[in-house]
């Protein structure tokens, strides 16, 4: 698979046409779809029209943009004008957005071409990409296993070589965990780096759009193109992603870099194969000049509980909008009763996991529970964020396994929501703190399946974080 940087270089120079690039990618998408179900929609026509336009721009000598001709896949909870966007939910099965998400508009303005919309856990709620109205996504290396989630379709599309670059969203690990399971790179930038205008909201104080790719430098280029304040998202800020830092090119590129291994995330609960892969990576990083020390995030044991109270509370509020009155699949009821139509439409259109989270969020926000659950979780969130900041104070990045295990067989955790939630412990600390985090492939662990290493950095320090991750990925 050619990298996005390389494809853009070839298309920009006229050495390869965008139509050729896209035609080949569409062929790969069709073949992959039959095995992985990575896509909800493949947008062949839109992609070919866009490719012809890029080729015209190149022929006329105008500037086609830094991602000229690069096919990208977009998670189906990110709005695309005129292209169906379902969020994996039956209630949005016919929803065609009248606007583009800012990240999509910026990618297209940079010359990227939307190849299709990728499958996901409904509204981003899941860690396996099995809970979609379009059916489960299957792992490209073993169709009997999950890709992880919720951005599993994007991870499968990149891992299967369909596209070099895909967008996901990450509320508690939904970009990084499937990236780790599928053996690709996944980056969740700092809260605020990318506009979320057009992202279908799940938990607004945690949601962030992220990038999946084969190559760390492709992720950097995509983030650079998409970042910057957006007047349509008050939580976006004016920050840029630094270009690749010229780390010493000698045999010690990490000289002077300090990395903190989070003690609490290397012990009990982490599969032996994942732990060995991380230990081996640690030795390689030391060999490349890094100083690796142990650090502590004592409140990590509280992170999953904190995360699920806050995420479900925000979900119950955000998903109140799906009442099937102005848009969405409406169930008609006898007597033409609006309230009953809403209740039936929500029950029929929202999946079981989504309903479970709405009910849990409703509970923690309801009178009598608010202070004991929701307010308390916001207080513990500050303790977790303070612990992460303290751990980062003496190092350039934290290092943890991206997930405690490798991919599991389809269906294995569907009846045990708590077991599914507990796997988020390694990733959700970055969402609670708002910090950037990137997962890179860390080798092969249990069952000959890939695992990932996660680097967590200080807010808006993506430039340095990606440089460290790039060295680790090549090591």
């Amino acid at each position, binding site marked *: 698979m050619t990298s996005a940087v390389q494809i853009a270089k070839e298309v920009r120079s006229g050495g390869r046409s965008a139509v050729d690039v896209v035609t080949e990618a569409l062929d790969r998408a069709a073949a992959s779809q039959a095995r992985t179900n990575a896509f909800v929609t493949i947008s062949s026509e839109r992609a070919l029209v866009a490719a012809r336009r890029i080729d015209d721009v190149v022929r006329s000598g105008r500037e086609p943009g830094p991602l000229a001709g690069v096919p990208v896949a977009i998670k189906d909870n990110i709005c695309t004008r005129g292209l169906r966007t379902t969020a994996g939910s039956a209630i949005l099965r016919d929803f065609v957005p009248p606007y583009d998400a800012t990240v999509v508009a910026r990618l297209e303005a940079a010359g990227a071409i939307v190849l299709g919309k990728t499958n996901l856990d409904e509204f981003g709620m899941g860690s396996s990409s099995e809970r979609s109205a379009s059916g489960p996504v299957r792992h490209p290396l073993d169709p009997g296993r999950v890709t992880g989630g919720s951005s599993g379709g994007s991870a499968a599309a990149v891992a299967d070589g369909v596209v070099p670059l895909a967008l996901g969203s990450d509320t508690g690990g939904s970009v990084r965990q499937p990236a780790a399971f599928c053996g690709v790179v996944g980056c969740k930038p700092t809260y605020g780096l990318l506009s979320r205008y057009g992202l279908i909201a799940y938990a607004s104080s945690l949601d962030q759009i992220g990038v999946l790719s084969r190559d760390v430098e492709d992720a950097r280029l995509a983030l650079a193109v998409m970042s910057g304040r957006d007047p349509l998202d008050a939580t976006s800020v004016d920050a840029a992603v630094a270009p690749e830092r010229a780390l010493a090119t000698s045999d010690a590129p990490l000289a002077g870099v300090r990395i903190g291994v989070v003690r609490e995330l290397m012990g009990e609960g982490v599969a032996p194969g994942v732990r060995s892969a991380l230990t081996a990576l640690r030795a390689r990083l030391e060999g490349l000049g890094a100083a690796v020390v142990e650090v502590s995030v004592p409140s990590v044991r509280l992170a999953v509980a904190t995360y699920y109270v806050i995420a479900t509370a925000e979900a119950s509020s955000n998903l109140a909008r799906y009442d099937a009155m102005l848009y969405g699949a409406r169930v008609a009821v006898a007597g033409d009763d*609006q309230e009953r139509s809403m209740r039936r439409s*929500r029950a029929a259109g929202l999946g079981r996991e989504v309903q479970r989270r709405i009910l849990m969020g409703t509970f923690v926000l309801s009178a009598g529970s608010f202070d004991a659950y929701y307010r308390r979780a916001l207080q513990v969130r500050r303790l977790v964020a303070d612990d992460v900041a303290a751990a980062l104070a003496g190092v350039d990045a934290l290092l943890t396994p991206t997930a405690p295990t490798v991919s599991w067989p389809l269906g294995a955790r569907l009846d045990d929501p708590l077991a599914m939630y507990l796997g988020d412990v390694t990733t959700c600390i970055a969402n609670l703190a708002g910090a950037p985090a990137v997962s890179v492939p860390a080798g092969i662990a249990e069952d000959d399946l890939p695992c990932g290493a996660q680097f967590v950095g200080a807010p808006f320090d993506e430039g340095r974080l990606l440089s460290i991750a790039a060295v680790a990925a090549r090591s």
Partner: protein
Amino acid sequence: MPLTDADLDHLADLARLELPAEDRAGLRRDLDRLLGYVALLQEVDVDGVVPMQRPMHLADVLRDDEAVRPVGSGDLEALAPATSEGRVVVPRTVDGSG
């Protein structure tokens, strides 16, 4: 304390969800288990800790006062489950007998 049937009814009512009878036992069991797990937050000393609503400080920033073209009413109408003469049709919200 486990959720009662009445608790589940109350939550479903607040969330505007009509729960199918066959899902109720499973949902109650799942919610009990999840609430039992998150109860570990009750052991934490949070005295004096300021709640963290979001991971960044936000100040109000107004958009520039520029004219933009909004999404057209026709585009919005196209999304609606039912329309008539440029209006969205919804089920009855008030009693017609008054």
